[in-house]
């Protein structure tokens, strides 16, 4: 026993006073929840170095394969840059699909979800914490791929507008993680097994997002991807801005239009994430289950 405050931490006159939080307390609780939930993701970077192999080493092999193919075909050098940028963005998609979309499902299995629901913060703060923690951790992974790929394969960037490029990158992450936050609830609601759902989405998304080639090459499918998938539109806009003035003719909308698409996606996905979260909690409280179908 350490002292008189051991079992008496916050002295309130009673349960009513303890339950009456003002707006500042609510806001601070949610902000601290974001920090608290991001914490294990950042700590994990130092405690589980296996990410260097699984999230940098293995994806880099795929990137290298495409680079070698493009070189063999004597494709314009910008294609090498496209592949390296795509390889860097892979880190974010892997993080979104495995550590965002599937995460609430695993939280449920572990018993964390019940504890989250019984805590006073907004569940959206938990999702934001997961997203920000994952985003920061993935930034490091993406940077490692980008630097190694650029050095090893001699990529020359031609950036005329740094600010729009950074804005597109930021918006891409917001929209991408907004999608992940929405999928997190959907996986719990509809998933028989998060592992299978994740695998089901992973490869098709690589393909239609044009991770290793300009998405415009997919014709109508590429246009559809640009309209619907944050990774596709964000990656295309970043390529247009990072390799400006080159010989490649982009058949997709200009970066300005793609920025607008990303803004709309961010708002829509974050709104849908909130809606899906509410639906999940309502279903859990009304029907005594979290899934919309039997597992």
């Amino acid at each position, binding site marked *: *026993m*350490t*002292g*008189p*405050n*051991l*079992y*008496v*931490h*916050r*002295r*309130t*006159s*009673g*349960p*009513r*006073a*303890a*339950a*009456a*939080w003002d707006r500042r*307390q609510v806001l*601070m*609780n949610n902000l*601290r*929840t974001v*920090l*608290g*939930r991001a*914490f*294990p993701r950042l*700590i*994990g970077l130092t*405690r*589980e170095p296996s990410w260097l192999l699984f999230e940098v080493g293995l994806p880099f092999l795929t990137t290298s394969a495409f680079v070698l193919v493009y070189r063999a075909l004597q494709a314009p050098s910008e294609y090498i840059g496209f592949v390296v940028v795509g390889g860097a963005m892979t880190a974010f998609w892997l993080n979104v699909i495995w550590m965002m979309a599937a995460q609430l499902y695993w939280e449920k299995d*572990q*018993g*964390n979800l*019940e*504890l*989250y*629901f*019984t*805590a*006073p*913060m907004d569940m959206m703060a*938990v999702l934001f914490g997961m997203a920000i923690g994952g985003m920061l951790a993935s930034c490091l992974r993406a940077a490692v791929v980008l630097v190694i790929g650029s050095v090893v394969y001699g990529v020359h960037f031609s950036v005329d507008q740094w600010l729009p490029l950074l804005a597109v990158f930021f918006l891409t992450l917001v929209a991408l993680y907004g999608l992940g936050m929405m999928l997190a609830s959907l996986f719990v609601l509809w998933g028989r097994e998060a592992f299978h759902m994740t695998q089901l989405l992973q490869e098709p998304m690589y393909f239609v997002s044009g991770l290793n080639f300009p998405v415009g090459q997919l014709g109508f499918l590429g246009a559809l991807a640009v309209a619907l998938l944050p990774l596709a539109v964000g990656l295309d806009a970043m390529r247009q801005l990072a390799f400006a003035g080159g010989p490649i003719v982009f058949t997709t909308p200009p970066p300005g239009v793609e920025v607008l698409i990303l803004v709309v996606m961010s708002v829509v996905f974050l709104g849908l994430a909130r809606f899906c979260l509410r639906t999940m909690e309502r279903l*859990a*409280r*009304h*029907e*005594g289950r979290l899934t919309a179908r039997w597992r």
Partner: protein
Amino acid sequence: MGRRPTPGVLVSDVPRPTDAISDHAIEARAVTRVYKARPAPVTALAGIDLEVAPGEFFGLLGPNGAGKTTLIKIFTTLLLPTTGTARVFGFDVAVQTKQIRRIMNMVAGGEQSGYGVLTVREQLWMFSQFYGLGTREGWGRVDDLIEAVGLGEQRLQRISSLSTGERQKMNLARGLLNDPWILFLDEPTLGLDVSAARVVRHLVSDWRAAVPGRTVLLTTHYMAEADELCERIAIVDHGRILAIGSPAELKRMVQRESIFRLELDRLDGGPAVLAGLPGVVHASPAGGADAGAALDRQTVAVNLVLTDDAALGGVVGALGSLGAHIVALAKSEPSLEDVFVELVGRGFDDAPAEASR
């Protein structure tokens, strides 16, 4: 044990819950809960009426599938009642979830929450942020509680490497982080060894005793635990409360007669000579270990069932006139298990094994 004074804290130093908007810490009115299932809906709660006073240590005792966990889930805002109303310190579980979540916490037995990559200290700090503690305040509170639950040596150990007992101590520390006014404990000592279970019980009792008004709702199917900790107990089976009262009151419900065990230096004519005395319902030789021990001591052991305690005087007088001397006298108390058997018609172990509801 539950009535021991709390170390380091004077009751007069701490506030009483003067602002309660309800006379009850917990209140349930005609609560039912029906789960949709195939081939037929499952009724987990079939009309629960319950009131728990602020500061009470209240137990729900019942076998698996009795509805205990469902009731706790309703009070902790995880589940809505199908019909009826439930309140926690006057806050309606259906609409005032945020208020309830700010003043309560829950700990379940076998809980595997958290992230294995974190240490005990980090894990608890993470939860402190969810519960509204400040960033630095959280670290201080965590360190205090780690010492309180006896995890000082494991504070920097990853939670994935904790033993079951250590894990449950950490879970309990998590449950106390936000200084709740009401703590819900769902089988908190499940799977713990005797020593770890004792530590958990002591901690909960000490914590509750530190501030008047702190309330504990415990579900358990360990009768001795409920008997030791709870001021009142509700015996639940098939979604209904069969009886409610203090452990002593519940035991008295089934103890319609007084039962004594007598050990005498001699008894000519055997127990039958006592059977006809006024107030004696039944007198028989003691069996089992009692009989064996008496044989070793060359004494006679007798089980005596009396209409009430007052009849014992007549028996003692009669024994004197028979020339028998009393070597030992003990009154047999019924256990909560006897109460359960009387009410339910079967023992805990005989209860149908259903999934916890």
